[in-house]
């Protein structure tokens, strides 16, 4: 992916740029809001990583300006302030995802790749497919290799999120945000517990694990 990073803190900028380059992404950096907006407008980026508080032009105004100009490049907003109303403001301002500092690099990497262009929608928008797993969103049914699997509502939502992002790693916090709408990390391992239940239901009668655990990063369902 071609990624533009707009972040004034040199240390953070280098940290993100090096990590993303190592993952094989092509990275362009900018340390200033105005310069960043100029570069972003030139287009050709698959994802933008923008700090909320950059000099020149703050991140939120930058995203608004981009969107107003019709630029739809996906944006991951970084912030040092995890304000309660802040996140909502960021997302409403046009950012696609929001990450509060400090963060683990694996978290950022997962979110950036999740921002990448979504797969072309299947012919049937109510149907999600990944590998041998198929989900009917209307009937709320799941099948693996044609075999029905009965899930609890939360397990269904969890699986749907993984299938929707098939081929990409979903971190624990991403799942907490998207499946549970939690913007905090509970002490209890609710994600792990639900995943293990989901796994045992999906894998019953199969030799292969439907959900892959990516060490130190998160979970992923293969195929698309």
């Amino acid at each position, binding site marked *: 992916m071609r990624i533009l990073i707009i972040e004034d803190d040199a240390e953070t900028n280098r940290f993100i740029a090096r990590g993303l380059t190592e993952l094989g992404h092509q990275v362009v950096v900018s340390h200033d809001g105005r310069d960043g907006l100029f570069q972003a407008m030139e287009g050709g980026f698959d994802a933008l990583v923008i700090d909320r508080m950059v000099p020149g032009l703050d991140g939120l105004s930058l995203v608004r300006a981009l969107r107003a100009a019709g630029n739809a490049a996906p944006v991951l907003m970084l912030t040092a302030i*995890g304000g309660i109303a802040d996140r909502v403001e960021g997302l409403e301002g046009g950012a696609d995802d929001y990450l509060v500092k400090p963060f683990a690099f694996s978290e950022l990497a997962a979110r950036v790749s999740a921002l990448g262009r979504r797969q072309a929608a299947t012919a049937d928008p109510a149907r999600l497919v990944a590998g041998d797993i198929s989900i009917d969103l209307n009937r709320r049914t799941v099948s693996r290799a044609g075999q029905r699997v009965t899930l609890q509502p939360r397990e269904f939502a969890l699986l749907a999120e993984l299938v929707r992002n098939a081929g990409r790693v979903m971190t624990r916090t991403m799942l907490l945000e998207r499946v*549970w*709408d*939690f*913007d*905090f990390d509970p002490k*209890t391992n*609710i994600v792990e517990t*639900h995943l293990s239940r989901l796994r045992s239901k999906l894998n019953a009668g199969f030799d292969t694990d439907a959900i892959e655990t990516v060490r130190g990063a998160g979970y992923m369902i293969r195929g698309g």
Partner: protein
Amino acid sequence: MRLGVGTGWWRSSFGLVAIVGIVFALTTLAIGVIAYVATHEALEQQLDHRIATETAALIDEGDDGPEGVAVAIRRREAARSTASLDFLLVDPDGRTVAGSLGATVPALPGYVELLPYERNGEQRIAQSLTTLLPGGHRLLVAADRAPIDEMDRSLLKLFVGTFGLMLVLGIGAAWIVGTVTRRRLASIHGTAQAIIGGDLGQRVPVSGAGDEFDDVAVTLNRMLDRIGLLIDNLRQVSSDVAHDLRTPLTRLHNRLDEALATDDREGQRGAIAAASAQSRELLDIFAALLRIAEVEGIGSQAHFKPLDLSALVEGVDETYRPDMEASGHSLTADIAPDITLHGDRRLMQQLLTNLLDNALSHTPAGTTVHLSLTLSGGRTLLVVTDDGPGVADGEGARLFQRFARGERSRTSDGHGLGLALVAAIAAAHGGSARLMPGPGFKVAIEL
């Protein structure tokens, strides 16, 4: 507070009262002048009228000519019937025909306001009317002006006296009000100065008179008490934070020292991994502290929205059930349907998960955790209770403070920030969190 001279001196209480006093005095003076002029004019007109009437009467009585008028004058003077009026009749050559008025008859007929004359060797002033009689005789009727002058003098004295009195009273009242106000304000001023100087224990003296200054003093003192309480609280929190962060920071430091001291590559890796975990924990503590501070600082509830609390509690109940069961606990719930709340969805979820996390980490397997949501008397009551060991007596309210940990949970992990956040979230929603008497651990959130 400036009471000295300057462009705004009149705004001081002395200035204001003095201005009112001066305005009153000037009004009195204006009324005096008007009354003086009006009275003076009225008296003069009255005199003119008497003189004219008398002149007409004389001419009427002596209708056969100057002789008749002379007779009438003599008769009046003899009778002394008109003590205040004097007469003089002169022939065309100016010789006196009748009358005893010691004055020169004006050459032209008509009124003369100030006619000098002599009576008993004394120079006086009279008001007069000269009438030209047929045949060239001139009749002069005059009235002494003494009554008018006397009245004028009395009025003048009265009004000057009143004006002076008003002025003195006004300035005096201004001085008294100014002094009293200044003295009371000076005590408030002094207290404020002392507080600026660092003595936060100072309070504004209350005179006990129950006046408006006392009201202000009492309000100011209450404000100072509140500020004092907040500052104490802040000091306590800061010192708690410093104290409680020292332990993980020390551990981090030790791990790094350990990594430096060893040459063994595997040992170094282990120490660095432990140090990394320690720093992660520190970041978590900071995040939790910031979250509490943020929730406590929610000034406006602008982003609050109506939310289905029943569904929210059910969702969290469902989310926690697998973990509860996996750790040998059992979770029961009693959730009244359709209870709504105006609030922040994520904060309410965090409140609930903190309480359930607490129950999970501080109770042994086999404990039953019960979650209930009820509506009674217009208040929403959310209760999380367990039949575990509970807390020691007297630990109740303290547990909702930052870094407060129950004696029985000293050894388990956690930083004592979970319940502080619960209390902050409840308060942000206009509610309260309290610990209910056991057995077990029982927290009630009233919203």
